[in-house]
């Protein structure tokens, strides 16, 4: 085991520094794309074309703004939990084939899901509850309601290509699935299943990132900022960073596990890089389009939409994928 290389992947690429930079850059692109779709300017002043705006926001919140606490708050616990959530998302991203020194294990898909769908949301929920308030409690209650549908839907949609992948000694492996996913798009029998997985995962991406029409847990005008109401200064900076990294890792997982990443080409080849960038742009623009063109749904409407367009197609796809692998 090459320890310096492991530390490099963990701390630099595609770990800490890359994930931090990529997620904030993605926030800029997302805000700019949504603004353009709505005939607005978007971030324009900080850095060339406003590209440094999310970085300026983050460092201003963390370095300059004051932390507002009450006698019931536990800000140190909230900080530790947000750091844990951020770290779990970065470590989960190391399982994706973007990592040049990757860990491959049978059933590593479940480690990814555990880190991405359990540790990260629970950290955010517990961090919110560490800074209590009536709006926070309401926001957390909404988030918990959402998570009961959204996370199983995300898990099920990613499970479709994982179940379809049959490789000796590497069952339920992220790497094996990513390298085989493009084959399922070319096979007329598995193409509809992959389409179901893609539709379901795109809907889930909006819900996981709490973007329109699923921006209910932090619904402004209704419950102030929901679970983020009591966050301020450095804590708010961390919470926003966690949100950005969550969006980045979820989008990346869809690109690799469902859309097949750069394969059949390698990451280092121009075709591979182009394919990877194109697929990522597709996921990102689809999300921005939904965000820009929809309004907020009520809680029960959102749950119904999630059930119809995310959980139901993913479940049907998974059942059909299981039948296909058994025959």
């Amino acid at each position, binding site marked *: 085991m090459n320890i310096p290389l492991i530390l490099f992947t963990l701390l630099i690429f595609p770990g*800490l520094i890359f994930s931090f930079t990529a997620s904030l850059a993605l926030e800029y692109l997302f805000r700019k794309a949504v603004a353009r779709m709505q005939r607005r300017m978007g971030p324009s002043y900080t850095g060339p074309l406003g590209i440094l705006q999310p970085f300026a926001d983050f460092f201003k919140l963390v370095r300059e703004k004051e932390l507002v606490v009450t006698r019931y708050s536990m800000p140190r616990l909230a900080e530790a939990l947000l750091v844990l959530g951020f770290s779990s998302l970065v470590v989960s991203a190391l399982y994706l084939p973007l990592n040049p020194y990757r860990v491959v*294990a049978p059933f590593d898909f479940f480690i990814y899901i555990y880190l991405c769908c359990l540790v990260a949301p629970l950290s955010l929920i517990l961090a919110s509850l560490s800074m209590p308030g009536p709006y926070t409690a309401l926001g957390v209650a909404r988030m918990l309601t959402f998570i009961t549908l959204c996370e199983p839907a995300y898990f099920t949609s990613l499970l479709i290509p994982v179940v379809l992948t049959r490789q000796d000694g590497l069952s339920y492996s992220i790497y094996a699935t990513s390298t085989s996913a493009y084959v399922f798009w070319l096979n007329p029998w598995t193409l509809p299943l992959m389409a179901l997985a893609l539709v379901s995962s795109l809907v889930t991406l909006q819900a996981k990132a709490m973007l329109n029409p699923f921006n209910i847990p932090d619904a402004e005008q209704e419950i102030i900022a929901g679970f983020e109401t009591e966050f301020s200064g450095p804590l708010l900076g961390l919470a926003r960073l966690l949100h950005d990294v969550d969006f980045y890792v979820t989008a990346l997982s869809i690109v690799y596990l469902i859309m097949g990443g750069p394969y059949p080409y390698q990451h280092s080849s121009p075709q591979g890089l182009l394919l990877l960038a194109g697929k990522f742009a597709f996921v990102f623009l689809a999300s921005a389009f939904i965000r820009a063109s929809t309004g907020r749904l009520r809680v029960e409407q959102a749950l119904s939409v999630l059930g119809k367009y995310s959980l139901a197609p993913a479940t049907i796809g998974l059942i059909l994928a299981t039948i296909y692998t058994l025959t």
Partner: protein
Amino acid sequence: MVLTASTIQLDVYHAVVFSAIELLVLAITVYLCYIGLRSKKVRYTGVYLSGEGEEVVSELTPSVGGLYWAFIRQYARRIYKLIFERVQTGSLSDWFYYISSWLGLLVLLSVILSLLYLFAR
């Protein structure tokens, strides 16, 4: 599939331990960076309750029971309606029929499973 030299192949148990160590190292690193970066300014305030003081509510956060009933009433309406209509009719005999049929089913299941266990052993 070709596993290259830049791939660590582990079994799932070692992968869990490996990820846990990575998570720990990264969390400590991020926390130290954050401590070094963060603002030291802290302001203490009262709890924000739409401009009201803290005395307007008995508890600052909802009780566990309150959260449970809010979830059941708002988001699991069908279950709530079923329980409300079938069990809480106000008639003791309805409740007795419901609970006796349910307990009867459980007793029947336990008898069948015990017999199956005895014969299958």
